């Protein structure tokens, strides 16, 4: 169907479905919601990185004006069935039980008539702590003398893995999860002409989504609950809430309006359990809105140490790679096991090897828990991998671009044994960015400066592992289209793209499609808005639902007209049969009687289970980002001036070109910040720049002189009309491309992020001896 007819809506420059709401300020987010009688929650946070909680006295706080409830971890037993949560490992307490594990860990919660009253009450809660030694970083946590952050091992699960992959819970002290992957035989190292060992460090960023973590929770009469929340994965959240409160999922309504950014942070429990407890205690709706400073204490990216050992032939042919990655998981496991899986799996990058072996461990430290972050382990892996590929090329006297081209996995070639074929021609993308930055042009520079160019490829499996998605399309008698699915509109344009798919299939104008509000009680099931999965996974479910409705309508019309459905076309809620036009509304009224009818189509998609695939399902698609950088370095100061940054992603088929462009550019600029300056700075276990003024994020003035994003549409995607997912790929290659260009310019290699002038200058000075 899609192949024969020219597309009317898909790929066309239509206005985003949320454009009017967002440019007029009418869009409503969770943070805008208020309910009658609503209370405000605030929490008391630990000033210690690691301590035993000896006692908590809440009496004075509870007596304060406006205060309706105060609670602490040990008191939760009265209100919850399970006081802990987590993805694979249930280790994070709703409120600290007997121990705090990072500065900012939540100790007590207050609900009051106003936020000011709640804050005033917090000041009167007296907590006695007995300090314990802290574990500020990976080295400290792995030290033989380090205290155990969890003397009693929390329970967890390891999911099933396929060919070559495995994992273990709590393999050693302060390590909550270890993922391993291996393919081929390590003996090939012996045949290599060279083996290189290199170590890299990756600094962590905060998500800095502008809408804070916020929810409004209401525990209603008869144990029915409603949570409106700024969240990326309402269905898994529902499951956690059901488990925490031992309540049927059918009694829980999780609703998600527009979300003001997430970048991974808004997965799983954040504000919701505390707000629900306080609502249950008071019988009133409770709003829990964290400040941006609290956001810094809630979830972050993973800092990492990555050790790579890579064997190569003298001509640059890659042979084998062994990797050991240590992720700084912060105080609780959160999504660390999943991130470890991805970092460990992706670390060999887009190249062909005879042998790969990786171990990725999640190390618990007394810092903010690390969780999902755009790129999901791929960012850390790409930083190390693409840096080392360049270093090896230079050591062998080869051009880094040539060496990459020599080793890239080809289009349609399985990436690893049992995996799906790579669905982009990676050489094509590399050539595009190289051309755009003038990779081969002379390296002219201002006096005192040196010019350099660098390339990198970000490579990750996309679409999520074991990710089911369901969708429903309903069309009423008059042709009004209802689209129901669990993809959250977090800015990525999902409402628009999915509505475009439906409108295209049903021959309807885009404005006819209404994306219904998300409520877990009525919206079909979805695993979550993550892994760039909306268009490839949910898109296929939506496509099937729409095709089902279309077929039902055509079938009904064919029977009514006494012809074959294949002879009919559906266009603007009218059946076309040759030169005849039959409006559908009167036909439906005629067939079903005066009250009319509603056509309902359901769609489901899930990548098939496959034990030959390392992660139990083949990758849905491959998300690839190419980057090229042209820069100069001031040899006196270590200052970097970026002349051009070119990135490219392959949308397979762009459903909406500007939306794709925005995703690629937003991701690339996040990568630029990561490369040059953005990081959470710790003094021991204390975060010292955890607020907006001190924490530097990219601004418009940080844009390179030339910033180009090249949207490819290679056409090999599994999604509707050949689409692939977008939105993470172009973040990955930017930091290594910049580090590679710096080495090209001044001959020094920086292995630690960010690439600050101080680091570059001291490397230049050291190299001069």
């Amino acid at each position, binding site marked *: 169907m899609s192949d024969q007819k020219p597309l009317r809506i898909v790929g066309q420059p239509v206005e985003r479905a949320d454009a009017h709401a*967002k440019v007029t300020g009418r869009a409503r987010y969770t943070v805008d919601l208020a309910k009658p009688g609503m209370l405000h929650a605030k929490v008391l946070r630990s000033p210690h990185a690691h301590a035993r909680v000896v006692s908590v006295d809440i009496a004075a706080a509870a007596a304060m004006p406006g205060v309706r409830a105060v609670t602490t971890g040990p008191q939760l037993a009265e209100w919850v069935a399970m006081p802990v949560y987590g993805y694979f490992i249930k280790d994070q307490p709703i409120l600290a039980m007997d121990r705090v594990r990072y500065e900012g860990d939540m100790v007590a919660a207050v609900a009051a008539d106003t936020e000011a009253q709640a804050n005033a009450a917090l000041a009167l809660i007296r907590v006695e702590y007995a300090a314990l030694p802290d574990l500020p970083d990976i080295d400290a946590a792995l030290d033989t003398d380090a205290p155990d952050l969890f003397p009693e091992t929390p329970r967890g699960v390891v999911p099933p893995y396929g060919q070559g992959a495995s994992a273990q819970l709590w393999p050693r002290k302060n390590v909550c999860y270890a993922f391993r992957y291996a393919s081929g035989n390590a003996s090939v190292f012996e045949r290599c002409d060279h083996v290189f060992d290199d170590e890299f460090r990756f600094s962590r960023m905060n998500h800095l989504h502008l*809408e804070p973590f916020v929810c409004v929770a209401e525990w209603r009469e008869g144990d029915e609950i409603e949570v409106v929340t700024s969240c990326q994965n309402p269905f898994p959240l529902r499951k956690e809430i059901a488990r925490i409160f031992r309540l049927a999922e059918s009694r829980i309504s999780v609703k998600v309006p*527009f979300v003001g*950014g997430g970048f991974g942070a808004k997965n799983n429990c954040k504000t919701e359990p505390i707000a629900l407890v306080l609502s249950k205690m008071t019988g009133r709706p409770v709003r829990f809105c964290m400040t941006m400073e609290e956001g810094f204490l809630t979830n972050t990216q993973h800092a990492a140490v990555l050790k790579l050992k890579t064997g190569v032939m003298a001509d640059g042919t890659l042979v084998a790679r062994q990797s050991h990655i240590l992720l700084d998981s912060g105080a609780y496991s959160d999504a660390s096991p999943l991130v470890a899986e991805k970092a460990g799996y992706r670390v060999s990058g887009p190249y062909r090897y005879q042998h790969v072996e990786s171990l990725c461990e999640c190390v618990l430290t007394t810092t903010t828990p690390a969780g999902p972050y755009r790129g999901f382990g791929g960012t850390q892996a790409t930083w190390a991998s693409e840096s080392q590929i360049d270093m090896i090329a230079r050591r062998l006297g080869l051009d880094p671009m040539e060496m990459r081209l020599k080793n890239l996995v080809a289009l349609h070639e399985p990436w690893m044994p049992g995996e799906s074929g790579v669905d982009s021609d990676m050489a094509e993308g590399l050539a595009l960015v190289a051309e755009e930055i003038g990779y081969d042009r002379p390296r002219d520079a201002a006096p005192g400066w040196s010019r350099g160019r660098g390339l990198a490829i970000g490579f990750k499996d996309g679409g999520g592992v074991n990710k089911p998605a369901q969708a429903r399309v309903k069309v009423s008698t008059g042709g009004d289209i209802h689209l129901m699915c669990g993809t959250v509109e977090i*800015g990525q*344009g999902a409402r628009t793209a999915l509505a475009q798919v439906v409108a295209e299939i049903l021959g309807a104008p885009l404005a006819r499609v209404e994306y219904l509000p998300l409520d877990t009680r009525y919206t079909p099931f979805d695993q979550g808005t993550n892994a760039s999965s909306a268009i490839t996974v949910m898109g296929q479910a939506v496509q099937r639902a729409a095709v089902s409705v279309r077929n039902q309508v055509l079938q009904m019309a064919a029977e009514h007209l006494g012809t074959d459905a294949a002879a009919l076309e559906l266009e603007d809620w009218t059946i076309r049969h040759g030169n005849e036009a039959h409006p559908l509304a009167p036909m439906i009224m005629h067939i079903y009687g005066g009250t009319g009818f509603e056509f309902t189509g359901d769609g489901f998609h899930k990548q098939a289970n496959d034990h030959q695939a390392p992660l139990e399902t083949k990758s849905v698609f491959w998300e690839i980002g190419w980057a090229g950088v042209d820069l100069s370095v001031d040899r006196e100061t270590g200052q970097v001036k970026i002349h051009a940054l070119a990135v490219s992603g392959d949308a397979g088929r762009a459903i909406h070109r500007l939306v794709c462009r*925005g995703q690629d550019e937003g991701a690339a600029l996040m990568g630029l910040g990561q490369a040059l300056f953005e990081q959470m700075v710790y003094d021991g276990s204390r975060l010292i720049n955890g*607020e*907006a003024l001190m924490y530097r994020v990219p601004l418009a003035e940080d*844009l390179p002189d030339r910033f180009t994003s090249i949207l490819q549409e290679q056409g090999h995607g599994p999604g509707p009309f050949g689409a692939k997912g977008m939105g993470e790929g172009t973040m990955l290659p930017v930091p290594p491309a910049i580090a590679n260009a710096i080495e090209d310019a001044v001959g020094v290699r920086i292995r630690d992020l960010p690439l600050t002038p101080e680091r570059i200058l001291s490397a230049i000075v050291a190299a001069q001896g």
Partner: protein
Amino acid sequence: MSLISKDGALRVAFTLNGRETTVETVTSRVLSDLLRDDMNLKGTRVSCGRTVCGACSVLVDGFPRAACSTFAFEVEGRDVQTIEGVEAPDGTLDPVQAAFAAKSAFQCGFCTSGMILLAKSLLATHPDPDRATIIAWISSNICRCTGYELIVEAVQDAARAMREGPKS
């Protein structure tokens, strides 16, 4: 004139989106809370709450101000414009809004109210701004989503549309 009583209650008279407005409030009230919580004008977004991100930008006498860090009493006698006052009374979008919509110069939309007001202020003083000027102005606000490039282009488009006047 504002009248402050002993308990901190006061009356503030100002122009809000073209209308004379008087509110009873307290000395500690900031403009963003006054707009959002007392007047239900939720289009002004609050993120950092400390004059850094610009999500809460409103125009006071035509220039951007962080509503999160402006006391309500500071707008006594002034002209305040919020995102709700940008479109024409008949609902026609302002050229800046139209350009942001057409260019998809937003994603999550949380910075958009502030960015649009910032751009309006820029174009009121610089009808034909060059790229460097646009970048200098919008660098006062954070957008975590877009990478800014589409915002810069939308501002350029809006400037062009405003110079050329309404299409016949």
